């Protein structure tokens, strides 16, 4: 195994989270970190509950247990944050 392959996952990458207004927030994380951590931190920064946010990559849901490596995210890649919607009447 080459050195490069061994260190993959340890090298941090920057992920851009774009909200529905187009505003971007940057996160530096390891490729092996679960996305749940990004979701929770993002919610904290925005002052909302993590349960009111949904994250998409190219229009597909990101699961909290997935990692950037599993999602094949590269440095500076962008994910979208969608907000809870509701209805009743």
């Amino acid at each position, binding site marked *: 195994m080459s050195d490069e392959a061994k260190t993959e996952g340890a090298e941090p990458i920057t992920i851009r989270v*774009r*909200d*529905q*207004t187009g505003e971007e927030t940057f996160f530096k994380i390891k490729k092996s970190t679960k996305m*749940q951590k990004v979701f929770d931190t993002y919610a904290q920064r925005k002052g*909302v*509950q*993590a*349960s*009111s*946010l*949904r994250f*998409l990559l*190219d*229009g*597909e*849901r990101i*699961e*909290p*247990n997935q990692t950037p490596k599993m999602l094949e995210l590269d440095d500076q890649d962008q994910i*979208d944050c*969608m*907000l*809870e*919607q*509701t*209805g*009743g*009447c």
Partner: protein
Amino acid sequence: MSNPLLLNYHDAVLYQSDLNILESPRVWLNDACMNFVLTRLGKEFASRCRFVDPSVLSFFMHQWDEEEDGDEDVLGLKRPQDDGSTLFLFLPINDNYVSQNWTNPGGGTHWSLLLLAMEKKKDGSQFWHFDSSAGSNQRAALAVAQKIQRVMNHHPKHPMEECTAPQQQNGYDCGLHTLATARALAMAFSSGEENKFRKDTLEDIVRQTVATSPSFFSKMRQAMVQDIQSLIQEDS
């Protein structure tokens, strides 16, 4: 306040706060509850039906740009059935898709169901709208239908037909109407080989299955809670 993540069912994620919604008889359903049931239906009726996640549809309406993102087929519009049969796409409509205030969490007031019968030969495709509060979501549903038609490059004379749907008797059950309607139609589509459906046939199917009595919907909420609890147990 702690709000643990309870369940991840094929990417339909439910928190304690989502379960609390279903446990209450009168709380409005959010997109997480809607998506959970739609994902369940997607597993049950996989052969001819596809169910769209409301947050993906919101993305399609607010962020997705045909010029820039045309290659990303987020709704699966370029994936008709291989064998030439009709594919039924279930689109949960929220008035938030066309609202000015869509950037606030918890936005939206009303759910309804837009059904797309997608044909390989696209000029055969049709759109039907079922709304438990007739007229309320017409603008949002039409906006979704028209954007899809632009993407498909299909411009029918009638972009969408409004169907006569059972009407809700209260100010909180539209999400359940939407889900019950989706289930009734999916069952009918999956039980036969039939490809072509007329508007009045669809209306009959829904009328025969979706009751308007309060007990029908409170039982539905209870059944959803039980379903979620048993999935959580299987999971652990």
